């Protein structure tokens, strides 16, 4: 490309003769041989050798001049030294500097490079933490990068380690392991950049990433156990919550039931009272119309029902003083045997028991203080 440029000139092309192709080269040699051999006179030699020397010098100069062309890529800058002394920094494009007089060193300034570190270090609270981080950086000042520091990348490594340890040493372990990580990274970046500027490295730090921060392997298990303990805490709490959520609605349900039952009882006793009262009142109205007869009738009806349904012994003991033998137990067995043990009698028995039981209970309660 360079020697096809218009400014380059044809004479700087070392392969200028190549236009005629390889076979012509042989021809040229042959011609040269002929010339050397054919011109036997010695007087021709000085002129000829002068020509040769001129050509050689011209070719050397052409080669030298041509060697001074170079291109600088879009991503690069080139530092030019003239006889070792800094001359200039050139941007992208085609440039020419005299070779051997000027030295050109190109450096990429846009490529983001990365360097990684991983070490154990002390924290502020005297714990040990394992931190790995990576630094992304660019060469911002190629002059400084190339000329001011020997081995700028080693300087970067040292500075990174120093900055990282400084920041970690001023931070507590818990912070580093949890939410303080981003802060650590940003502090390291600020500090690192300050060191690098102080050392004239020409490096610009783009980003510092804390890739990983964890306790050392020896204590990792203990840290994991803390995490498990936190989970346990939550689990036990949840279990208790679930117990709570289980029993309270149940109790509320039971309360609801009790309430409903009480309401039912209330309505029941009121309704019964009202019914019974109404019945009594109706009867009373009729009774008041004809008290004597009604009273008589009621009495007789009741007594009839009583005597009709139960066993009875009519004793006319008016004479009164002679002893009477009543075989009551025999009468009971006699009277009970013919009674068919059907459902009706069973129910009657039950009802009687039920009536008897509360009475007995009341009696007992009455006895108690």
């Amino acid at each position, binding site marked *: 490309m360079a020697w096809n440029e218009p400014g380059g000139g044809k004479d700087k092309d070392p392969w200028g003769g190549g236009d005629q192709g390889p076979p012509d080269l042989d021809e040229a040699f042959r011609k040269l041989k002929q010339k050397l051999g054919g011109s036997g006179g010695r007087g021709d030699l000085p002129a000829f050798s002068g020509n040769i020397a001129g050509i050689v010098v011209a070719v050397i100069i052409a080669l030298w001049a041509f060697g001074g062309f170079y291109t600088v890529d879009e991503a690069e800058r080139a530092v030019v030294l003239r006889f070792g002394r800094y001359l200039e920094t050139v941007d992208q494009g085609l440039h020419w500097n005299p070779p051997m007089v000027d030295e050109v060193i190109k450096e990429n300034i846009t490529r983001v490079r990365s360097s990684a570190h991983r070490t154990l270090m002390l924290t502020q609270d*005297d714990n040990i933490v394992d931190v790995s981080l990576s630094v992304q950086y660019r060469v911002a000042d190629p002059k400084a990068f190339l000329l001011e520091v020997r081995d700028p990348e080693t300087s970067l490594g040292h500075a990174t380690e120093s900055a990282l340890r400084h920041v970690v040493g001023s931070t507590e372990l818990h912070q580093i392991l949890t939410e303080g990580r981003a802060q650590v990274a940003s502090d390291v970046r600020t500090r690192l950049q300050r060191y690098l500027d102080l050392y004239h490295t020409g490096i610009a730090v783009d980003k510092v990433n804390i890739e990983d921060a964890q306790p050392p392997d020896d204590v990792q298990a203990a840290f994991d156990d803390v995490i498990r303990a936190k989970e346990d805490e939550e689990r036990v709490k949840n279990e208790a919550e679930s117990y709570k959520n289980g029993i309270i609605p149940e109790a509320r349900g039971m309360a609801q039931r009790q309430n409903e039952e009480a309401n039912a009882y209330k309505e029941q006793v009121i309704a019964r009272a009202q019914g019974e009262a109404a019945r009594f009142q109706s009867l009373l109205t009729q009774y008041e119309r004809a008290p004597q007869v009604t009273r008589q009738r009621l009495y007789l009806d009741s007594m009839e029902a009583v005597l009709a349904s139960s066993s009875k012994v009519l004793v006319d003991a008016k004479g009164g003083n002679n002893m009477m033998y009543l075989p009551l137990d025999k009468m009971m067995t006699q009277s009970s045997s013919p009674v068919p043990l059907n459902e009706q009698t069973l129910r009657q028995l039950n009802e009687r028991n039920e009536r008897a039981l509360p009475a007995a209970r009341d009696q007992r309660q009455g006895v108690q203080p």
Partner: protein
Amino acid sequence: MNRGLLSMAVLLVVAMLVSSCLFVVKETERAVVLKFGEVVRPDVEPGIHWKIPFVHTVRRFDGRILTMDARAERYLTLEKKALMVDAYAKWRIIEVRKFYTATQGEEARAQALLGQRINDGLRNEIGRRDMHEVVSGERDQLMEALTRELNNVAKSELGVEVVDIRVKRIDLPAEVSPKVYERMKSEREREAREHRSRGQELAEGIRASADRERTIIQSEAYRDAERLRGEGDAVASEVYADAYNRNPEFYAFWRSLNAYENSFRSKSDVLVISPDSDFFKYMDSQSGKR
């Protein structure tokens, strides 16, 4: 020889002579010119310069910022705790003549001298501070003080400037690390136990409060139920009383009859009756008079 070749040869010789009279000092270098071992030009600028061949010799040194990486050393802090400290220094040659005379131009020698001084300085500075200060808070001050102190000596004696001294690593000695691990472990164990117990505490609290709430709900339900029952009983009593008060005597009569009927309704109830009662009034006499 013919003229062409001769001129070429002359040119070559001249070029060789000229080149031996010239020397180049690079931007990255500092140089001194010696005349039979004596410094005649102490600080040569970067660029191209003349000299007399065989008389003058040129010594070049690296003029860039250099790194002196000290070995990790054991230092004692104020409270006699051992720390492994690994430091590095950034330095460069500023007075070439002084540097040359002090070190014979040997970089390694300069490094060794600097390293010795940095170690002494670090030992002093660390010995005056406790471990906590060294590890965290006062690193910057420590280093600034050390750099300042060292610079005075380095400039006057070695002709070098110390740009910066930094501690690269501060570690506990290897035999102490297990103890630190033990402590870290015990701290974590404490924390874990605390979490577990706190979980138990909270859980117990939640359970107890749930039980309390349940008891309260039950008791309140009982209270309300009893109240309702009482209300029912009261209303019922009132209704009964209102009705029965209209004729207490008839109520007593009617209620008694009901009670008799309910009491004796089975064949197994045996009544031993005297015919004196009202019921048998007509049993003895049709007139009902006895």
